[in-house]
């Protein structure tokens, strides 16, 4: 399935696990392509929301990077939101990272 990340997290040497997902469903890059700087610039110029790349480790790294730069407001809201949930600390942490990723994304859209 690959990891869906925002184009701003693309780095050279990453390999596309699936086609670039554009908002209108167009397919722009072949699967398995290793990204060079020029490809990254092209993808960013397409203004797509997500790119699918290979590697679960990329997914978690990107979630952590997203959380580092998220606004304090989003971080406070997500902390509070879990008050009534009873997952393990690790599960809670992972869900929070996922929540921060999309809350940050939606904040840029509104």
């Amino acid at each position, binding site marked *: *399935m690959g*990891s*869906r990340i925002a184009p701003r997290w693309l780095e050279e040497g990453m390999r596309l696990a699936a086609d670039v*997902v554009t*908002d209108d469903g167009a397919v722009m890059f072949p699967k398995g392509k290793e990204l060079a700087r020029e490809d990254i610039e092209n993808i960013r110029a397409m203004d797509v*929301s*997500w790119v699918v790349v290979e590697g*679960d480790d990329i*997914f978690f790294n990107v979630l952590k990077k997203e959380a580092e730069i998220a606004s304090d407001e*989003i971080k406070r*809201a*997500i902390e*509070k*939101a*879990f*008050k*009534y*949930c*009873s*997952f393990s600390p690790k*599960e809670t942490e*992972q*869900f929070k990272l*996922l*929540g921060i*990723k*999309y*809350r940050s*994304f*939606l904040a840029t859209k509104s």
Partner: protein
Amino acid sequence: MARTIPVHIKQKFEQVVNVPTLPKVLSKVISMLGEPRVSAREVAKVISQDQALVSRILRIVNSAFYGFPRQIKTIDHALVILGFNRLKAAIFTASVLEVFKNGQNNIGFDVNGFWEHSIGVGVISKALAKHLRLPNVEEHFIFGLLHDVGKLILDYYGKEFYEKVLPLQKEKDIPLREAELEIIGFDHSIVGSIVFEKWNLPYDMIDVVTWHHDVINYNGKFLQSVGIVAVADFLTRLIGLGFGGDNFIPPLHKNVFSMLNLDLMTMDYIISEGISQLDSMRDFLDIIRG
């Protein structure tokens, strides 16, 4: 699997909720849709007696949700293009929305935020159903859209009580459901359940509305659908889309995730699938507003 509702709750319900009656044509249509041998043509004939209903159904079937490039102009045409089952889902949606049009009875609940949340649950339910390769993917959008409709029923038709629930939720900063239980003695899922049963809506829809906060105790035949909507509700609140009445994520047993074979990366994929459809679903908000 209908929840067995104790007599004292039913009695209290009658005091709290002034259940809206559906327009005659709608009742007739819903009753016909429950009959196994009814023909699509017969249903279309009855629907055509109510032009407001016809118009609302056509707006739904012409929305970006169905994504047909050519405009559908008649119920008969919709039948041919959509098929009976998908048209049924559109009719049920139009029926429920009919009860909340205009909003004159609203007492301060954030209705726009509510519908945005509901649409979010709808698109994520649909994405989950598609991922799980279920045959009735579109119906899951409707299940998600209507899962919390008990809140709206209380807001419009039980306002004497909801006027106390909403300030309590704010004052104590607790989940809306907790405030409902404290003031009324039962929550919006019971309200939705009783009203949907009175309206003779389909059993799968009733079970989703009734059990989405209690999946782990549900043992009926629509477990996947109930689980899907519960997870979609969880994820929609996780990403902060719309407003479900409070800012908390509802507790959900982790077995529900494993029952649907969902890990974090799959949920990430599902959310991105869901929100990629969000813009095209927003014309549902216009339809809802009438």
